[in-house]
Every structure is written in C-alpha cells, then in structure tokens.
C-alpha cells in the first residue's frame, strides 16, 4: 500500500487542509506572504500541496513550483520560511494522529521541493 492510501487518501487531505492553513495564517513568521490572496484559491492550493506531500496524485513539476513561488522569493522567501511550513506540516499530521513513520515520509516528499520552491 502506498503512503497516500496509508495516510487515508482524500478524506485525510480534507481533514488536514483547514488545520494546516490555519496554522500558516496564524504564524507571524510567514503570514505576510499570504496577504491579499484569494483564500478559496489558496485553500485549494494548500490541498494540492498536501496531496503531493501525502504521496497522492499530482501533475506539478519543478518548473511549476518555481514559477508559483518566484514572486515570493522576490519578497524575501527563504529557508527559514520553508522550515516554518515544514513545522506546520508535521504538527498538522501529529494532530491528526498520523503515525510517526508516515509523517517522516510525507516530510521527505515536501522537503524534496525545497530548492524549487526557493528558486535555486
């Protein structure tokens, strides 16, 4: 069984997306990057991100990641902000009582996007 099925598939993503997005918006370190965005569109993007981190189906490429985050990098997005998001991903999954080995797998997938997200 793949990670996506083990974590619980789409229902798990749905359960995670509100928790995760709320943590991100409450975080003074990173919330400014979300100023003025359309929240419905952003929630859908968070869902796409979590689906990818959970090993689920997606068509994102490294190029898509770069293009999407380029304006944020210009606003100063760096490793510390990426670390903050990783923290919230872990905390969300812990809150949902996902077993630690699965959290580690999801974190590794998210971590693999770091260089693309930070455009380097």
């Amino acid at each position, binding site marked *: 069984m793949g990670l996506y099925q083990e974590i619980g598939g*789409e229902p798990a993503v*749905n359960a995670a*997306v*509100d928790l995760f*997005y*709320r943590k991100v*918006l*409450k975080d003074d370190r990173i919330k400014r990057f979300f100023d003025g965005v359309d*929240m*419905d*569109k952003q*929630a*859908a*993007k968070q*869902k*796409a991100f979590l*689906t990818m981190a959970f090993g689920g*189906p*997606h*068509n*994102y490429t490294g190029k*898509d990641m770069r293009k*999407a985050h380029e304006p944020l990098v210009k606003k100063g997005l760096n490793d510390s902000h990426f670390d903050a998001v990783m923290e919230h991903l872990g905390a969300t999954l812990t809150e949902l009582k996902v077993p630690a080995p699965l959290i580690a797998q999801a974190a590794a997938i998210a971590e693999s996007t770091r260089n693309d997200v930070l455009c380097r």
Partner: protein
Amino acid sequence: MPKIVYGGRSFESGTASVLDTLTSHEISIPSSCRSGLCQACLMRAVKGRVPARAQLGLKPTLVSTHHFLACSCIPEEYMQIALPDDAMHTLFATVTRLERLNRNVLGIWLRPPESFDYVAGQFIRVYKDETTSRPYSLASVPSLDDELELHVRKVPGGQVSGWLFDELRAGDTVKISEAMGNCIYVPGQPEQSLLLIGTGSGLAPLICIAREALSKGHSGPIGIYHGSRNRGELYLVEQMRAMAKKHSNLIYVPCVSEGDALPDCASGMAPDVALAEHPDLSHWKVFLCGNADMVKSAKQKAFLAGASMRDIHADPF
C-alpha cells in the same frame, strides 16, 4: 462524440478533458495542477449534465450550481459551458414595483419569464444597454415568491444604479442575465448554526438565505448581522425585527460603525460584532455579503475563529 459550446464556438471533445479541448484551440482558461486539486480551472455548465468526476472535492454549493473542474471533465453529452461569472443568456423581465427602502437603496420587483430559474442566494446582471451591466443579488426566494426582488444601492456617479434610480418606472421591461453565483443555502444540515454577515445592500442575499433556510425547516440558530456606517443607511429594520420575532431560532442585529452608540443597534463593524458574540465558529456555516474589503477580512477572521473553508460562502461586491 459529445460537443461542447464555449464562447459561441462549438468543439468536438472526444476523450479529452474540457481544459485540453479548449487549450488545443488556443483558448486560455485559468489552470494550474491539471489533477482536479487546485480548482484554478473552475467553470460552470449552463446546459448539459456534468460528469460526477469533474465535481470531486468541490463545495456542495458549487456542485448544486453546476460548477465543475475543466481539467477533470470529460463530457459524456452535449454541454454548454462558461467561466463562473460570465453571463451566457439574457432575457427580459417586467418591472412591477419600485420602492425606496431608504435614501440610498431602491427595492425593485421584477416579473421574469416562466423559464427563469434560480437558487436562493444567487445574483443576476441588469443591463442598461448592450455593454453596460451590473450584478445585483436577489432578495427573493424561488419557492416563496413569484417575483424577483433586488436591492440597488445608489453609487455616486454609478451608470447603472443612477439609471435605475432616476429613469426606471413600473411597467418597464429590463434586460437581465440568468442567475449566477454560489453563495447559497444547501439543505441537509438543519441543525447547523448559520452566521449571516452583510453590509449595505448585502442584506438582500442574507434575507434570501435566511428565508430559504427557514422554509426548508432549518432548526439551528441563524444570526443576521447587518452593518452600515450610520442608522440612516440601514433599511428594512422593522421588517427584520418582525421576522426575528416570528422565528425563535433567528436573531437580527443591526450594527452601526460610526458615531455615538444607539440604543437599538450594536456599535461596531458587523463582522466584529458577530465575532465578539460568537468567538468559536467551529462547525458553523458563514455567509458574507457586501463590501469586498469587508468580505475579504471577515473571511479570514471567520476561518481563524474555527469555521472550515468549505463552510464559508462569500458574495463580495
């Protein structure tokens, strides 16, 4: 092979998605993940059945108003499609009554043709001429009212509102669009608490959603918070109070944000008053209608107060 019609052009879809079909004809539709997740490629079916797969993950309000994701939609039959807020059809309605609801808000009642169909909470566009139109929310409820009711706020220098205020007369015929929008009440959770927040003529969709919910037997609490800068800009206050008196699960709180406190109104911006009274919105459904900046900030406040993004519906204007 099923045909799709978009923007007046017709396409054979074959086994490709709507997004791929349109893109291959060099029609640009917003899109991103192409996996049915990011919802960037949201479209609306004006005619034809939407395959269930193209609606996976959408809010129930979007599903019941025939929205779908272009990247996941492989048409099974003829479909006429549009971007979410693009009006496709126009029709003519007769003005039956006009009434000033206050100095700046005009109530307009229209008799639409029989073919006109809408869901409580949707809006229509009203056309002054071929190229000039504005969206107005409907205050009427299809199962309760024969006529359409609009609340038009007079915008200083506004082309359409100025024309409606100064020139429209009972008996006139006006061109309107089909109903659009997804800030609607979907039955199924009659015990859920509903928070309805609006400013200015945003009262129209709130009245409509509340009446629709009550007529469908909604038993959970319904709170309506209607805000204006001053007392004179509120309207239908007595009618709203009477409605709240009639239904024990309905409360109505008029809010005034400027000037001295008034005995019969709450002081402050409507979202702030509502959130102070209901700090925990977990499991609530929230409707936000009115000024775009108010809607934007209230959406974030409601979400941070615990409402799920799936349960927050907005109609900014």
